[in-house]
């Protein structure tokens, strides 16, 4: 077994074992076991990312597992966010009880669900086979839906039910596409679904095109691309903050990677232009749908949710443009978005402790009474808005430049205009949220603020390092490996 395979096994296996462990250990040991297991898993995932990105030309591909630069990048992101979510969980659990599982079993159920969710999430980018990837994406629904409804409150139940139903239905259509694809392959069997065999064996034709569209549209329902995004704002806003962070920063881009792999694998059959145009179409529609909501005064977590819709649109555009510049932008954007968005969701725990009204209404003037919390929220929102020196400012420039480089000038210009509009909306939200008129005068430190501020400091370092890395990334082997894919 190679070092990559060992690390991949640890990154997936540790959280899976942790999920089982927290079910059987005594109640007082649940949190310690969960945090230790998720810390180990995070370390293994980050180590795998370092190994994969240090030598991006080296590929490990089999019918069931793929460890390439894209998988390394995504596993690293999931490792970081999974670890941070685990660290942010004790503060969240100290402020709430579960209506779904009760106060006795709530903590155990939460950590079991969280560890299971992380285990499946890490496995998604490593799937070397469309069938396995589908199964894992579907499994993330089961693990995460229960966490979305964790509070048991009516709004959480509504969000969880909607998420479960809409994503399952969408993935049903994806599975139909997979069956169509299997029928189109020589021999008509589901055994030939590894990424490489899809690229080599699937013939061109109407069936393949319809199959491709069904698969991507079904996955779009899980990624949260407009117009099949209806579950996204509800689930992100009602889930526990550490889970919202995982949903937005890790789940959405992980499933997007699957959609990208499908597009890359089927390019020879459906045509490069067609495949990429579908992704660009989803990207533009997602931006167009998200921007009006970024201009509205929304509750903090709901604002972050609509920002996820915008950023998944940007990533879709980047992979659709598929030039080295655009792919460098995609890599920076995935990491930058994950760090900033996760931080924003973690800040929701002290925010809701300080001002419970923030669950359903826009908040203003937080920095006036809670400077630490205001600074954390400001770093998150400023980064997500693309305010320089945010790495997302640079990644968006790279994606737009990549669009022009790809000869898709209209799409690139449209992207630039919509991102500018989105920036204005989020910048306004940033000013109002941090420096507007404060509703509460309570200066007592918000509960759960200290771990969030520590995560905020670490996030700031990562974001600044990422902004610096964005300058040299386009000329590196990493981007070349992303452009080459598995083939």
């Amino acid at each position, binding site marked *: 077994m190679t070092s990559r395979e060992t690390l991949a096994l640890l990154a997936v296996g540790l959280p899976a074992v942790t999920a089982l462990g927290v079910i059987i250990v005594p109640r007082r040991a649940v949190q310690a076991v969960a945090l230790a297991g998720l810390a180990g898993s995070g370390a293994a995932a980050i180590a795998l990312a370092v190994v994969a990105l240090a030598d991006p030309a080296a590929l490990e591909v089999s019918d069931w597992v793929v460890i390439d630069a894209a998988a390394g990048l995504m596993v690293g992101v999931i490792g970081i966010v999974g670890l941070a979510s685990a660290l942010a969980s004790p503060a969240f659990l100290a402020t709430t009880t579960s209506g779904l599982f009760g106060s006795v079993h709530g903590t155990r159920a939460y950590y079991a669900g969280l560890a299971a969710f992380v285990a499946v999430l890490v496995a998604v980018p490593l799937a070397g086979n469309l069938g*396995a990837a589908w*199964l894992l994406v579907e499994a993330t629904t089961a693990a995460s839906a229960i966490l979305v*409804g964790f509070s048991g409150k009516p*709004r959480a139940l*509504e969000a969880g039910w909607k998420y479960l139903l809409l994503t399952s239905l969408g993935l049903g259509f994806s599975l139909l596409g997979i069956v*169509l694809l*299997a*029928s189109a392959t020589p021999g008509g069997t589901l055994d030939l*679904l590894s990424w490489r065999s899809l690229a080599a064996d699937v013939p061109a034709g109407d069936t393949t095109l319809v199959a491709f569209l069904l698969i991507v549209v079904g996955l779009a329902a899980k990624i949260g691309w407009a117009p099949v995004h209806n579950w996204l704002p509800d689930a992100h806003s009602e889930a526990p903050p550490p889970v919202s962070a995982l949903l937005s920063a890790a789940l959405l881009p992980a499933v997007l990677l699957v959609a990208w792999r499908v597009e890359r694998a089927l390019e020879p059959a459906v045509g490069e232009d067609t495949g990429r145009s579908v992704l660009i179409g989803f990207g533009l529609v997602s931006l167009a749908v998200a921007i009006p909501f970024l201009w509205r005064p929304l509750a903090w977590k709901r604002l972050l949710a609509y920002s996820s819709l915008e950023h998944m649109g940007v990533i879709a555009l980047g992979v659709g443009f598929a030039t080295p510049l655009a792919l460098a932008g995609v890599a920076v954007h995935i990491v930058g978005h994950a760090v900033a968005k996760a931080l924003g969701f973690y800040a929701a725990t002290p925010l809701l402790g300080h001002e419970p009204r923030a669950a359903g209404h826009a908040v203003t003037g937080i920095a006036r009474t809670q400077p630490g919390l205001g600074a954390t929220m400001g770093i998150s929102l400023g980064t997500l808005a693309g305010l320089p020196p945010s790495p997302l400012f640079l990644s968006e420039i790279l994606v737009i430049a990549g669009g022009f480089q790809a000869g898709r000038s209209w799409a690139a210009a449209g992207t630039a205009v919509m991102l500018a509009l989105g920036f204005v909306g989020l910048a306004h939200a940033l000013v109002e949220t941090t420096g507007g008129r404060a509703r509460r005068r309570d200066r007592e430190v918000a509960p759960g603020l200290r771990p969030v501020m520590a995560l905020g400091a670490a996030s700031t370092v990562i974001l600044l390092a990422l902004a610096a890395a964005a300058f040299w990334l386009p000329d590196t082997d990493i981007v070349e490996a992303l452009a080459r894919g598995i083939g």
Partner: protein
Amino acid sequence: MSGTLAWAVVALGLAVVVVRRRSVAVALVTAQALLLGGVAFAEAENADDATAALALAVRGVALAALFLVIVSRTREPRPVRAGVTPFARAGLAIGLALALTWLVPSIGLESGQSERAMLALVAFGAAVVATRRATLHQLLGIVLVENGIVLGAIELPGGASLGIELGVALDLTLIALVAAVFHERIFAEFGSGDTAVLESLRD
């Protein structure tokens, strides 16, 4: 699969679209799954195929047991109204099935009847999710979609992959279990499994 069996599977699916009672819908979906399991077993060419057929039948029975437990634990004072009349639901479902049949090219399953039956079940499932308000009916819509896809997988000329089929059965069972938890909690919170009460999250 013979034409008669394909039509029987479709008729069971259409019945799920129109019936009012949850227990009847559960029985229909289970009968459909068992019929598909029987077809898969009859057409099995090796041990893997037979195992996949057995898994399909076990999944059908397990889901039936789960759904009947749900029905017995969450008795509705009166059946949840669908909001759309049975005739309208049937019309929508058939229209959707015809549209899918028209849009999707021939895909080379072992018979044209199987292709049409597969697409009809997917359409019926989507119609159930879109038009029914009862949580259990919506969940049965998802199962109906999966049954349609299972039919397609059975009728693939090269046969389905055992690993994928077992995985799909396991995934669907997990989703059903999680949905059961939600259903019970929604019932406990609102006194009904009517999704019309779940409309507070809007922008």
